[in-house]
């Protein structure tokens, strides 16, 4: 428990010294490191604080068991990197930012270590409110921050209803060893998938990310959405694993992954693309969780476990790679003062090699490039889905096949969009814009740390699987020693060894390449040319043009319009889900206006009538 307390203390200390921004962020970095140690200790031997009885049936307790240790392990890596990054990045923002940042992390830490509903929901709400304030740190982001808060409160209210139901069922607010009914399950799912940004509850995530400071975007997109996944896993341990939930999770998850991938493919704004990528990743995580639950209900325990570790690997890949992506993008965005993919070309030369390499590694991870961790996550997802033929129920088989098709499409779209992002930003031609000189030591250090984490976690992913307690899926075969071969089932269905893939790739490509680079003569570099003359600024193939074909083919889905306005031409695409919310807002306004005219119009008779009608209604309801 000492590391948990140390972490709490450092988070609180960071809040107190918020005026000293660098020092405050350093303390948050230390707090994150203690949280990581707590996770490592908890993974080996779970611990808790003991109960503090607040009221009868309301025992407050914190601790780390195997489940929370895994999530804390993943989250704390991201916290550490983001807070280290913020030591320099945070200098561009106000003195209030460290307190918001520290409080949001504190809230998350509380949620992940909570053993009772009260602590859980307190941490949940603290994280939500301070995340809202973090978004507000960016000028002109009130609307987006408010949208985030609105969805955050929908999530909290759903969670409160779920926990009230849990209390009524168990007369206890403990989230360990209690049982939940279907109301608890539905409301808790609603609360958690809102946080994960699952379709159609993803719109907040897109607008908030594009406006928030980049360290906040990384935080919102990675650790905050992790809380949703953690909540779902906890909820499943309380409410059981019914087949209907698994089927719905596969369908919603699959569709969400597809939708996220589809929208990412058309994204032009620098931070909108990774935001949609989060919707896609979380969709895949939800679908594999659904697959695990469905397999469990069909007594396919091996498949259930494999799908669960697939979820965790996907989560690890998403949290680390997405934090890295947002941080490196934020680095370039801040240095070049641009916010579109098109205008950030040439990060490698204009901003620096570390942010460019970071973008490249994170983008390749999301494109499932072997042996990076994202590759293993996606391979495991497909392997798990391929095994859905084992399901006895036709509904389960069809649902898994449906989810599988959508996820396969999502993977393709993700690779397409990431190729656009890294192709234009990290590897694109420098368009000659001079980058601002930023204090970037901690930013570079943090990006380097996460780049290595993403790369090494991929190469040594079998170790990660074993560490999370799923050693059953590790084996040795074809000369690959145990535990470096990941097997997707027993008896063996499919195998993969990222470690040996790296060794083989190293022998075949990397070592000869390194030898060539070291030994080769200096290469003469010339500017890119076309048709015999050098390319001018306006002649580079633009990022929107890269997406035009897919937008045109799916123009109904994108509500794509080719706009002509004087001498200006551009393409307009929309996430059509926003129409749903636009309709809701419109309906609310119309209803409010109608009510204000009919009932709340200032006439005392109307009020009296209103009061009487409500009284009669309540009388009948209460009766």
């Amino acid at each position: 428990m000492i590391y948990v307390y140390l972490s709490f203390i450092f988070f609180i200390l960071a809040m107190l010294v918020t005026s000293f921004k660098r020092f405050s962020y350093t303390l948050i970095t230390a707090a994150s490191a203690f949280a990581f140690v707590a996770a490592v200790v908890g993974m080996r031997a779970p611990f808790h604080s003991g109960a503090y009885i607040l009221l009868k049936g309301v025992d407050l307790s914190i601790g780390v068991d195997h489940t929370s240790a895994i999530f804390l392990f993943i989250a704390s890596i991201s916290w550490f990197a983001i807070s280290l990054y913020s030591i320099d990045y945070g200098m561009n923002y106000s003195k209030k930012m460290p307190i918001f940042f520290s409080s949001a992390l504190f809230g998350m830490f509380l949620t992940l270590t909570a053993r009772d509903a009260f602590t859980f929901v307190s941490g949940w709400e603290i994280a939500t409110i301070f995340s809202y304030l973090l978004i507000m740190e960016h000028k002109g982001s009130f609307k987006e921050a408010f949208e985030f808060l609105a969805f955050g409160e929908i999530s909290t209210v759903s969670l409160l209803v779920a926990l009230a139901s849990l209390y009524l069922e168990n007369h206890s607010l403990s989230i360990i060893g209690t049982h939940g009914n279907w109301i608890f399950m539905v409301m808790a799912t609603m609360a958690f998938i809102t946080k994960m940004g699952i379709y159609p509850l993803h719109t907040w995530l897109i607008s908030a990310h594009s406006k928030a400071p980049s360290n906040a975007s990384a935080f919102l997109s990675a650790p905050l959405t992790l809380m949703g996944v953690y909540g779902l896993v906890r909820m499943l341990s309380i409410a059981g694993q019914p087949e209907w939930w698994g089927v719905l999770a596969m369908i919603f998850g699959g569709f969400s992954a597809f939708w996220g991938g589809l929208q990412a493919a058309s994204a032009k704004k620098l931070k909108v693309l990774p935001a949609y990528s989060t919707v896609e990743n979380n969709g895949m995580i939800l679908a594999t969780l659904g697959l695990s639950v469905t397999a469990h209900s069909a007594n396919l325990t091996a498949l259930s476990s494999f799908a669960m570790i697939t979820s965790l690997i996907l989560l690890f890949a998403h949290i680390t790679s997405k934090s890295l992506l947002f941080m490196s993008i934020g680095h370039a965005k801040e240095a070049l003062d641009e916010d579109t993919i098109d205008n950030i070309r040439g990060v490698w030369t204009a901003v620096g090699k570390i942010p460019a390499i970071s973008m490249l590694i994170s983008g390749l991870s999301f494109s499932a490039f072997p042996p990076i961790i994202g590759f293993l996550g996606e391979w495991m997802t497909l392997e798990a889905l391929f095994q859905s033929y084992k399901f006895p129920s036709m509904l389960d088989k069809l649902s898994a096949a449906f989810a599988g098709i959508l996820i396969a499409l999502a993977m393709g779209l993700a690779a397409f969009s990431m190729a656009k992002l890294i192709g234009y930003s990290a590897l694109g031609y420098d368009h000659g814009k001079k980058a601002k000189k930023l204090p970037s030591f901690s930013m570079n250090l943090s990006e380097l740390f996460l780049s290595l984490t993403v790369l090494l976690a991929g190469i040594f992913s079998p170790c990660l699987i074993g560490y999370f307690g799923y050693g059953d899926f590790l084996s040795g075969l074809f000369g690959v020693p145990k535990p470096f071969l990941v097997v997707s089932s027993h008896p063996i269905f499919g195998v993969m060894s990222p470690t040996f893939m790296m060794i083989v790739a190293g022998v075949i490509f990397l070592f000869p390449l390194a030898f060539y680079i070291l030994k080769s003569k200096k290469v003469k570099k010339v500017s890119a040319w076309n048709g015999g003359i050098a390319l001018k600024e306006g002649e580079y193939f633009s990022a929107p043009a890269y997406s035009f074909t897919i937008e045109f083919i799916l123009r109904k889905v994108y509500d794509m319009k080719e706009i002509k306005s004087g001498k200006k031409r551009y393409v307009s695409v929309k996430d059509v889900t926003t129409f749903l919310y636009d309709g809701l807002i419109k309906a609310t306004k119309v209803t409010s206006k109608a009510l204000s005219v009919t009932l709340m119009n200032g006439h005392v008779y109307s009020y009296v009538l209103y009061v009487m009608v409500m009284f009669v209604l309540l009388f009948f309801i209460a009766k």
Partner: protein
Amino acid sequence: MSILLAHFKSNGKEEFITQEKGGIRKESENKGFKNLELIENRNEFIVDVFNGGKIEGDGVFDFRYGPVSGIGEAGVFHLYTYGERILSVKIDTFYKRRKLDEKMIGMDVNDALKIAERVSGNFSVSHSLAFSRAIEKAMKVEVDDKTKRVRAIALELERIYNHIHVISKLASDAAQLVLASHLSELFEDSLCVNEIFSGSRYLRDFVTLGGVTKVPSDKALNSVLKEIEKNKKSFTKLYKNSMTSRNYIDRLHSTAILSARDAAMIGLTGPSLRACNVKEDLRIKDDIYKDLKIVTDEEGDALSRMEVRAKEILESMEFVENNVKKINSKETDRMTLQGKGDGLGWCESPSGAIIYSIGVEDSKIKVLHVSTPSVFGMAAMAHSIVGNIFTDFPFALDSFGVNFADAAR
């Protein structure tokens, strides 16, 4: 419908050269011609006369095609796009601008003829004929009927091989490689006919001031007749077969559509204008062409342009067959042209009207203005391609049968 083809100042007065009902005339009044700016800027760039060139917007970029890539000539197409869609085209003629029309001023008329002939190699007869007619008018010389007929045959032979070349390129663009290969063979055969007729595969050095270099021998004329008959059969068969290929037709149909009104306002002439259902041809007022059937089509797209050219090949072949029989190999009298004056000469080239307005003094060129069909063909292409996609570009370009050498001079 009056089509403006040239505009210049002569003795301080503005002159507008227009084409209407198969004739060319000078006008002094600006009737609100839409393509005036195009004519004035043609030495720098050619754009759509209705919408201009450069377009801006989010994601819009200049997809530059040229000056040394794929198009076979030194020219640049600036395709403004935000993806596949072509939003606007700006054509840069700078790289091919040799200022030949400027160089001709001050030259002896016979030397200038050689330059005119070389403005565009594939329009050698058309340019030299229009130039010669302008000089002959300036010097008030009337050529005899036999010369007119021999020149007309040469002009039609030029039309035949140019049209075959255009259709061959369209077939190649549509990946109809068998058709394209057969047409290439026919193209080669047509060049051989030219050589038999004139001694030059590209009919060079044939038209002279007041006459032709050499009237073909009876043997050569018989060979021409025989070869044309053979080529006519081959082409008829190929054309008939090509029109059954859906892949080929689909690529051309509805590509780069042009309305008759827009075409006329741009200044388009020749087969591309006739493909917009406009019966406009400079040959119709010529007695030699009295039996010529003017081919038109209704759609105004790349397919119509191809069909008009295909039918014109057959018409021209028939013209050659009929007229070769009417001439003998006896040489015509050679004329020496001297004197001064102003003349306007024109002819219906394979791609439309070529006009020379020339002022001569002491057998030297004092003033010269030239109008070439490729300027208007390119502007028409720039207008009709808007809204089409990249893959339509070669069909649009090739269907107009234009080239940079002719446009840039």
